[in-house]
């Protein structure tokens, strides 16, 4: 058997079925999104029948100051709360794996509570809490509440990654003079990165998508996009929401593609250097 054929069959041995499967799942995930995108170009104001093609809604969307403001708010809240819940959640997950202590089961069980409390109760309770300590609603309260409900997702996801972590590798780092912090940064964190990234994505998603809790903890000047959209949906999804969603998806996709290309370039360059030396 010649090399080419072998390499081909080697890749193929694993690929075709699983590739097909992955594509099907992606299809499932993107099916409704495709509809959203399609109807963003619909001339009709309702998402029932595609009547004609137009860019009208995109123009309208940019004119919608409230929509744009709430979009900006959403990005800020999601960004800040994701970073915080990542830091808190990751540290907590690693700590829970590393250390044995009396309150351990309390801490780890309390992680489930924010997920288990119905959103509406949690939202109201949060709001009562804030107003009882005289913190008025606004970005701050919004971010705090988002951190609170997304942190457990980070912690739980990272914990699943940390479980069974090879201790000797951390030991080696400490042995070589790295303190707890440096060991965490240089060894533990890189090794649990897939878990951290997964957790971060979940946190980001939770935050971008939250309506109920945000409703209660947002102030007048901190309305978020989902709140806005929910309101618009109540009166029938108007295509400018579709347009915004489409732009969000396209924007992210473009960023993703660019970063992927940049990364590949970088790798190629490094690879080139390697083979030279």
């Amino acid at each position, binding site marked *: 058997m010649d090399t080419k054929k072998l390499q081909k069959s080697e890749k193929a041995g694993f690929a075709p079925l699983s590739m097909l499967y992955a594509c099907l799942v992606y299809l499932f995930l993107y099916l409704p999104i495709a509809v959203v995108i399609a109807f963003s170009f619909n001339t*009709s104001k*309702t*998402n*029932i*029948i595609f009547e004609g093609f137009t860019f009208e809604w995109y123009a309208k969307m940019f004119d*919608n*100051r*409230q929509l744009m403001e709430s979009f900006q708010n959403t990005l800020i809240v999601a960004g800040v709360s994701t970073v915080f819940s990542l830091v808190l959640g990751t540290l907590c997950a690693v700590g829970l794996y590393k250390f044995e202590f009396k309150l351990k089961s309390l801490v780890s069980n309390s992680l489930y509570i924010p997920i288990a409390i119905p959103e509406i109760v949690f939202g*109201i309770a949060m*709001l*009562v809490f*804030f*107003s009882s300590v005289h913190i*008025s*609603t*606004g970005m701050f309260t919004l971010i705090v509440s988002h951190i609170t409900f997304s942190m457990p997702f980070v912690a739980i996801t990272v914990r699943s990654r940390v479980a069974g972590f090879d201790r000797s590798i951390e030991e080696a780092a400490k042995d070589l003079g790295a303190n707890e912090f440096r060991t965490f940064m240089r060894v533990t964190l890189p090794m649990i990165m897939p878990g951290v990234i997964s957790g971060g994505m979940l946190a980001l998603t939770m935050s971008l998508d939250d309506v109920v809790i945000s*409703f*209660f903890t*947002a*102030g*007048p*000047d*901190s*309305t978020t996009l989902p*709140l*806005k959209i*929910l*309101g*618009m*949906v*109540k*009166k*029938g*999804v108007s295509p400018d929401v579709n347009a915004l969603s489409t732009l969000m998806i396209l924007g992210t996709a473009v960023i993703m593609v660019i970063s992927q290309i940049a990364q590949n370039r970088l790798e190629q360059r490094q690879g080139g250097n390697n083979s030279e030396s």
Partner: protein
Amino acid sequence: GGSSSGEGDKVLNIYNWTEYIPQEVYDQFEEETGIRVVESTFSSNEEMLAKLEAGGTDQYDLVVASNYVIDVMKEKNMIQTIDKDKIENITNISPSSMGMDYDPDNEYSIPFMATLTVIAINQEKCDELGVTINSFNDLLNPALENNIVVVDDSRELAAVALKATGQDPNSTDEATIEGALDWLNQLKTNIKAYDSDSPKTLLASNEVAVGLVYNMDAGQAIKENDQIKVVYTTEACEKSIDNFVITANSKNKEYAEEFINFVHRADVYKMILDEFPGVCLNDAAKELMDSSYLDNEGSNVDTAELDRANLIADVGEAATYYDDIFTKMKT
């Protein structure tokens, strides 16, 4: 509160239903008065109440609230009296919606718009099924199986059931309310969906023959599909009136009053109706409206029916009973 940002910056925080006042109105208001309007939105009175209750009323200056929560807000000292002198355009408001039971002297509330719960039918489908709707009891027609969309609201549905069985739609008597469950259970088999958000879609896309929906949804469905008609039954409809109220802890009462006055200017009110064609309570504005509004029987509801309609009242603790039968109906 988190109301004003920046010194000298005039801000009015308004807490409003979603999609009720278009941005252009706010823009124009700012242009004319220099007061920036910051709008927050809710999608049910209870949400609004819950938020005010939990977070205090100093978050907002002006709130748009339905008639049946005005009493509650008064009782809880959430709102303050309005200086009607500041609102010259009050004269534009249709007198039939002024001085209602919940606020006889309009001390606390100034009406804004009204909502009517109407029956909309798809003429073609109804003909196909051989159904005509003359009374609520016609909704029980077995031919309508899985062919009705209704609002997802316990009070509205119970009111229909109570009226169909000849009871007081604002009853607070537990036994009476529970009596409505039978009727509702009969209706259940005909219901395809409970949808307060976008029932017009089901109507317009020919998926249901009949809808018990808010008039604005009916109006939109009519725009989409010329087979949709509004029908009035022997029983009266339910209606609610949305009012402007000023929160007790508002720091910008004057701005709020200025805004109420602004909204009831005929041209401004027209702007609103053009964008969100609800039940017009501003007589001056109505005269300015063009045919696309006036001819839509969903938006521009029959005035006689509007007057005949039964105003949804606050039932106090009895709300629990209404919810109970609703829960039972859905289990």
